[in-house]
């Protein structure tokens, strides 16, 4: 395990544990395969957006609905599926308060009190780092073997 993995495996003080990385990997790979199957390879940006959305969706699904950020991501995903909006990337300009910046970064952070926001930030950061690790592993494996 690399350092990031060990950083991810810090004990969660909450009784509900974070998402298992295995489930996250399965979900993401399945979503990735679906994206690769359904989306033509002609438009890499559209595919990239879909992959990114799939990444967030897999994160949120594996995190479950007990977290506010995962609920927000899923809600936004459903809305976006209807509205066909852009990727769940947020334009976060660190203007004004730091807490406001964090609120804008963490999905569902608007209207959250500060304590809950920190808690959600912790969980979201953990899941996000896990996801990044997973994607990095896939990209590394694919790029090292694909060429």
């Amino acid at each position: 395990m690399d350092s990031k993995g060990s950083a991810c495996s810090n004990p969660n003080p909450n009784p509900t544990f974070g998402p298992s990385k295995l489930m996250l990997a399965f979900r993401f790979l399945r979503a990735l395969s679906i994206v690769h199957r359904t989306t033509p390879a002609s438009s890499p940006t559209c595919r990239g957006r879909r992959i990114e959305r799939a990444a967030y969706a897999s994160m949120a699904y594996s995190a479950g609905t007990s977290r506010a950020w995962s609920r927000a991501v899923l809600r936004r995903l459903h809305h976006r599926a209807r509205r066909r909006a852009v990727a769940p990337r947020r334009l976060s300009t660190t203007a004004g308060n730091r807490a406001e910046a964090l609120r804008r970064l963490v999905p569902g952070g608007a209207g959250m009190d500060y304590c809950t926001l920190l808690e959600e930030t912790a969980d979201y950061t953990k899941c996000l780092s896990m996801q990044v690790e997973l994607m990095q592993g896939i990209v590394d494996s694919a790029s090292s073997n694909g060429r």
Partner: protein
Amino acid sequence: MEKERFFGVNWQSMDAGMPPEMNSGAAAAAADQLPNSFLNLGWEQPMHHDVHFESALSSLVSSPSSNAPAGNDSVIIGELIGRLGSICNSGEVSPPSRYQSTNTSCYSTPLNSPPRLNLSTMDHQQQGRGGVPVPGNQMAAGKFSPFAADPGFTERAARFSCFGARGYPGLGGQFGLPEAGKLSRVSSSQSLKAVQLGASDNGKEVPVSEPERPETETRSKFGGEAEFGNSQEASSVSDRMTAVGAENNARKRKAASKGKAKGAPLSSSNMNPPKPSDGEKSDAKRCKPAETDGADKDAAVKPKTEENGDVGRKQGEEGNAKPPEPPKDYIHVRARRGQATDSHSLAERVRREKISERMKLLQDLVPGCNKVTGKALMLDEIINYVQSLQRQVEFLSMKLAALNPQLDFNMETLLPKDMHQALGQLPQQVYPLDMASTAFSYAQQLQGTPLQSLVTNSLDVQGSLNPLESSLRRPPTMQLPRLDGFADATSQLGNLWEDDLQYVVQMGLGQSQGTTAFSSQSMPVE
């Protein structure tokens, strides 16, 4: 008023152990001041001096560490008490300036020059503060300490304080003015304690029990002259005390009510309360450390009303004739500090603790956050980290999308079937694993088992993991003959999943100490 004066004269004459010439002198001084009593209406101001004298007298009585005075000292003190008694009886109605001058002279003639200076300064302070009691009483206690250990003096002082407690509520009851409450507040130790208890919630019942002892004592001393319903007066004192808060400015009242919890144990610990009898004195000595301990315990985190109630109850148990030490400066400081004990501040403190705990958690999560100090910098670091992670996800998804079609072929051919197959059989296996791991970690958290049992349990978990791992590893190895050229990729994916498995186990353990043990045990397995 006539009755009060009569009380004073009677008390002076009844005072045992007092030389007759001193007694007569005190009576003459009292008679000198008697005609002035009809002229004056501003009798609010002398009461503050009375408070001052009360506190000074109690400090006279109180300080336990002192050399024994000579016999003439006791005589002087007897005269002092006599004059004080006359002042207390007649000075209620005497003009303030004259009263002050007589007071200072009365105090300074028996004593040396430093107490006189002290008294005059204290008088000025009291005038400047508008009758607010001054913490200079400690200094007065230090100055008056040579006279303290005389038992006869303490007894006389106790009688005096008892009389004061008797007299001023009677006065207040006679006049029924709002100032009367104030007067009785500052008049004597009992009424001052009534103030303290009136500040608390259950203060109404305790002062009733308090002045009953002075009542009995004054009855024994004065031969049944104390005819007043003391309990009624005490309750009226407490009632008036709640009304006096409206008369004073609100801040002072708040400060008093908040600072009593601190101020009362301080005074009780510093000053030995003059008791009418020796047995009660020993009782007071016995219950004093308990009171200070309880007050210290109370002063920590408890809400204000509880604190006051506790202290008030203890004071009520301690009994009467406790010398008042109302240090106003303490009260002010305490008021500012005591605001941290109301419910809002407590909730705020809980919230802050929670936030700091979350911050600590985030500090563990975010790399490089251990080095920065301060919440703002930590928040900056966290924000940067989350932003970088989101950008990384974006970048990696773009990279995944832009990967060459071999990967797509790989993903399409390899993963969907196997993933569907694996996912078809995974939920039955992963979820029990998760349940087992979480249950295991719960058990580990609950029992606090040492590392050995942790390792053995982890062996069990590992054993249960093995079929799952084989099932997970099986699809890539089965795909190997079909997909030539991607063997390394699939093996790496397998390695990735093994890492995931390892990570699942680690998460199930929830402990960083299990990392080494698991890595050392999961290696021979595969």
